[in-house]
């Protein structure tokens, strides 16, 4: 069953063209890792999927709803596609628990008590139950990112989008975030992960997409693409990120 379907999606900002004719479909349960040089349009693709950016042409269907159909409630798509950002973007005036409870309270209209219970379960799941009362400024980067994952999960999305979730973290903190993501994948969550963590792509991902200059150049099994890069471009890219 398809959860994301891009049909000839193009995106430009003013005069700069960022995505060209992207055709891509993603099935429920897939873990898709997206790599590509800086500026190749990876973040833009994710942002188009949860409609933080409007596509310029083509069609994009998320959970059966087209982003260009005026009858679609954009907020519905956003609730189904959770997003985790490179810079965490936790709400600084709220504690970890309140950050996680925020979506359920405002969007799913849960009572404060139910939302806090749900939030506590999710914080436990990401290993941060004892940090529930801390403010983001009192948490390490890795802890903040795990709270951010819990916050996105709290609205019960069907799909999770990760935009370089570990690239703002020191090497010793990347592992704790990646292992949370790994267990999420093992539970069957559909995930699109922009990340240059090749170990994650090889061990957890079941699809690797290589983007360059706004186009999808390769789309295949991580192992095959990694072991035998079909083009010079991908080979150079993989060598550079080592």
């Amino acid at each position: 069953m398809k959860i994301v379907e891009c049909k000839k999606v193009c995106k430009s900002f003013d005069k700069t063209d960022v995505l060209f004719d992207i055709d891509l479909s993603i099935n429920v349960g897939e873990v898709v890792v997206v790599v590509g040089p800086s500026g190749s349009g990876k973040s833009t693709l994710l942002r188009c999927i949860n409609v933080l950016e409007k596509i310029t042409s083509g069609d994009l269907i998320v959970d059966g709803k087209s982003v260009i159909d005026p009858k679609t409630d954009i907020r519905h798509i956003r609730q189904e596609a959770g997003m985790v950002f490179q810079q965490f973007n936790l709400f600084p005036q709220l504690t970890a628990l309140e950050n996680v409870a925020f979506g359920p309270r405002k969007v799913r209209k849960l009572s404060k008590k139910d939302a806090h219970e749900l939030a506590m379960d999710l914080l436990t799941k990401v290993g941060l139950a004892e940090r529930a009362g801390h403010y983001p400024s009192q948490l390490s980067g890795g802890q903040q990112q795990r709270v951010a994952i819990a916050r996105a999960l709290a609205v019960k999305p069907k799909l999770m989008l990760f935009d370089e979730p570990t690239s703002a973290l020191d090497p010793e903190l990347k592992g704790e975030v990646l292992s949370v993501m790994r267990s999420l994948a093992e539970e069957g969550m559909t995930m699109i992960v922009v990340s240059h963590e090749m170990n994650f792509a090889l061990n957890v991902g079941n699809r690797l997409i290589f983007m360059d200059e706004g186009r999808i150049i390769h789309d295949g099994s991580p192992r095959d693409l990694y072991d035998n890069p079909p083009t010079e471009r991908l080979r150079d890219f993989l060598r550079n990120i080592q």
Partner: protein
Amino acid sequence: MDFQFQFVLTTLPQLMQGVKLTIYITVYGLLGGIGLGMITGLALAYKIPILNLTGAVYVWIIRGTPIVVQAMFVYFALPLAMGVRMSGLQAAVLVLAINAGAYIAEIVRGAVLSINKGLVDAGLALGLSRIQVTAFVVGPLSFRRMIPPLGNQFIIGLKDTSLFIVIGVGELTRQGQEIMASSFRALEVWTAVALIYLVLTTVLALSLRWLERRMKIL
């Protein structure tokens, strides 16, 4: 030098009349200014059509002209131009509101624009509406950032009420002026008036400091 403390005591009742008016103008003027400034500042920050443009013109005119001239204009010129007549006190409140509103608009605009775009994205990505993001994310955060510059503006507003002496409002400075005209005791009068202003601004500054401390500035 001969400072007659006794004389100061006898003037206190009249000075307190002035203090009452000064506080009245400050409170109502600043409340009006907050309302005007919020609307204008949000219109500027969110580029709301039409309001955005009128807001920019408003801020431009008010920041570009002295408050004394604004008071003279409202009190003396408006009645001639449009037949709007109001008491000195009404004019004072109105002018302070309009004047403070322009500066507060800039404070609001700056605070709203200083909020990290990523937080707005995070709110939207959770499925909140734009209005919810403004109310629950941008609002509370920018409010905290507004407190220090707003406090500064409140103190300026309080002191600016002394300029309404030019339209004959019996606020504190005006009362000082009148006492001096009949007693010629400049030293006592202006020392007392200055000290009273200092007390008022200090109380205001301390309460704002307290509020600031209660709300961690993020």
